[in-house]
């Protein structure tokens, strides 16, 4: 029931944007089906056995990472950036954005959202680890760790598009705040949808990311508003890990 509601919310948020960008009418039903199907791409990548990159031991051990992303972030960042899935998604997003015609560059925001969509498919596993490791502040630490990871990935995507020089400087600069807004909102909402249950949380984060991303692309000043909203939502997340289900199971986070 919730999946249906959230997926239609995404459809309603996407429809005007896509119709304006593509200058064509799109039926709601088609868009709904396309959106749900599109989420299968990050899901497939997240769960595919893609191996890892041999990044050195002790990566992200510098204190700045803990200061920015909380005590869970060194562990989270190491795992994320070692995973082949992370880099494959980043590569696909770069290629996908690069293939867009310059006048359709706004669709890059939707592509950038796939970075966080991938990570959200396994946030439920991290929830268990955060809950047992940090019972009082685990929710905060998990959100911060994910936000830092997604910020880094968004910046990498933005820089890659800059290097590829597929857009004008004005277009490229407009994408920066949009990408960051997508990363921040998606991360802040990672414990929504029944504490991060796959698909529910994806649809909620997608809705929030679309609104925040396009607002910030319209004017970079909205990034400050997004930061305020994220901070406000973040403060209310303290009790989100208190559901006790799934504590009593082994879990190897892929």
């Amino acid at each position, binding site marked *: 029931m919730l999946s249906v509601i959230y997926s239609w919310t995404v459809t309603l948020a996407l429809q005007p944007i896509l119709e304006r960008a593509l200058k064509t009418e799109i039926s709601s039903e088609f868009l709904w089906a396309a959106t749900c199907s599109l989420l299968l791409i990050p899901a497939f990548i997240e769960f595919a056995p893609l191996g*890892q990159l041999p990044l050195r*031991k*002790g990566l992200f*051990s510098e204190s700045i990472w803990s200061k920015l992303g909380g*005590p869970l972030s*060194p*562990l*989270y960042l*190491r*795992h994320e950036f*070692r*995973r082949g899935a992370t880099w494959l998604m980043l590569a696909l997003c770069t290629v996908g954005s690069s293939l867009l015609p310059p006048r359709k560059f706004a669709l890059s925001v939707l592509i950038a959202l796939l970075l966080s969509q991938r990570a959200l498919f396994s946030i439920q*596993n*991290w929830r*268990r*680890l955060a*809950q*047992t490791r*940090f*019972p*009082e*502040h685990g929710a905060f630490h998990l959100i911060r760790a994910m936000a830092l990871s997604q910020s880094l990935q968004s910046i990498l995507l933005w820089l890659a598009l800059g290097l590829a020089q597929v857009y004008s400087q004005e277009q490229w600069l407009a994408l920066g705040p949009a990408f960051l807004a997508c990363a921040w909102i998606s991360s802040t909402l990672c414990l929504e949808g029944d504490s991060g249950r796959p698909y529910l949380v994806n649809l909620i984060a997608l809705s929030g990311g679309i609104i925040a991303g396009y607002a910030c692309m319209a004017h970079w000043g909205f990034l400050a508003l997004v930061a305020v909203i994220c901070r406000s939502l973040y403060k209310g997340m303290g009790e989100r890990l*208190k559901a*006790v289900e799934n*504590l*009593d*199971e*082994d*879990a*190897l*986070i*892929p």
Partner: protein
Amino acid sequence: MKTLSFHNAKIGRNSASVLLELDSQGSDIEFKSGVHLLVAPNGYGKSTLLQTLAGAIPPVSGSIKLEQKQFHPETEMTYVSEYLQFPKFIYPSEWIEHFAGAPWNADLQAKLKPRIQGFRLESLMGRYLGRLSQGERRKITWLAADASPKSGILLDEPLDGLDLLAIETARQMIRDWRSQGRILLIVAHQVAEFLDLSDQVWLFKDRSLLPWSRLGVGPAASTPTDEFRRKILEFYSP
């Protein structure tokens, strides 16, 4: 010596399934520094109690205090769950330093070197956690608990998957932790491995805890295993 005490605490997953009602006032139900073994059949609330003390589940009502002050499990307790939860692409040293709250430097390595040798993990420290067997990961959880600076350690079925030699290393760690004044709570079906190390054994009766000492049969630590087993079976027989 530290003391964990209960104040009208109801322990359970929710108000409809309270498993324990504990109050230290006027009773001897409290956990002082030392080794506490929790012994009961499945479903009596042993793991639920540990998870509550770990902070993963809040008490249904009432409170728990450490040294009569507000208890913060996150900073006071290291919870070693029966269930192994690891990210796949993390090295053992990175996992340990996460629990230690300190970098994997020469001091930490020197401190843990005897344990790593005892667990025969020297050649495995360069592998990702996802590439280790269940028993090897279990050994890493022991190392992480040893590296943790917190005053309490909660061990839920900590010997699952450990070989005989590893169990001996684990027993030595228990002795060392006890001498450091830590509060140790252990749930283990391999009771015989911890019996002689225990300062108190707790039985579960009428939604409360009963210390072994109240059975009037002498300290559990000096009770022969066969006799201990017989007493437990008598106690819990319907």
